[in-house]
């Protein structure tokens, strides 16, 4: 955080920014829930699940960037947190694929 004293305008802009992100997060959540209730029963999982995942990752970006203030930190610091998480994302996908394979092995191949 910068050491200089905030002016009244900067403070007002920051407060307005936080409420804007709040509205965005609420809207994304409402859209997710509405999609789960209205479209969920009719569309296949392979369409719905990526949609939920992308919406949730978008929410995560807003929370980390604005609420946790990472958007305003140094780029090197952002990378020191972002790169490990990128490899983690790979691990999640890899294990999901492995689980799916297990499913096929146990129930689909006769």
């Amino acid at each position, binding site marked *: *955080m910068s*050491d200089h004293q*905030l002016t009244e305008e900067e*403070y007002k802009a*920051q*407060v307005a920014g*936080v*409420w804007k992100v*709040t509205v965005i*997060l*609420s809207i994304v*959540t*409402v859209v*997710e*829930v509405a999609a*789960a*209730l209205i479209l*969920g*029963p009719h569309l296949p*999982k392979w369409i*719905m*699940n990526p949609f*939920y*995942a992308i919406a*949730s990752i978008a*929410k*995560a970006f807003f*929370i*980390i960037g*604005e*609420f*946790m203030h990472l958007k305003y*930190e*140094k780029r*090197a*610091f952002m990378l*020191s*947190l972002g790169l*490990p*998480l990128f490899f*983690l994302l790979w*691990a*999640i996908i890899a*294990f*999901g694929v*492995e*689980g*799916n394979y*297990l*499913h096929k092995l*146990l*129930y689909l191949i006769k």
Partner: protein
Amino acid sequence: MAEVLEIKEHHTVHQLPTADNGEGGEKSPMNISYGKTMMWYFLLSDAFTFSAFLIAYACLRLGHKWWPNPNDVFNAMPFMGHHKIPMGFVSIMTFILIMSSVFVVRAVQEGHRMNKKGVMYWMFWGILGGAAFLGCQAWEWQHLLAEGMRPFYNVFYEGKDGLTTLWNVHEQGKPLFSPGPVAFGALFFGITGFHGFHVFTGVCLNIWGFFATANGTFEKRGHYEMIEKLGLYWHFVDLVWVFVFLAFYLM
């Protein structure tokens, strides 16, 4: 002027003693304080822990032949009796946690302005939101336990056409083997419980932050960085809930 001097003094106290030997070690390269850096890296390690749980969840769920449909499991609402409202209660919980997070952001912003009353006001609402979330989670757990769910016993089994059906343990008795996939209970109680434990810790820390603010501890220190660190932890709890919500209720 006295206040400015105090801020300067604090920053020198918290920096490691380094010789100005022209190698640049005397300056913080990331331009972020030691305390906040360490809070970030702690949160990164905590993200690994949660990811390990969610990876186990994804792998087990995808590996199973059948899995209970969340819309049919989590459809109870307090004060609504037997009306089924899929996703209703958990959406309210999500909203409560997001709002609580916003209140703590406001407390951090007031801290930058050295507004003690403002910090206390928004911390109070943040704490109230966290406590409300814990209350909701307690209700949800109690409801599932009353239906017969246990960490190693799952009463939601594959009925006709793969529909999620509740085995009524009170009328039909309790079979020796769990009617549905056992892992469902262990993963649900384990992961939401671990998250709830984080919420509980966060509420306790925020209560401490509230009283320390009231005490004037941070005012004397000349900055509200501790509120920022508490805020980072609190937003992380909200962030994890986004993914718990995704994995357990949406997918």
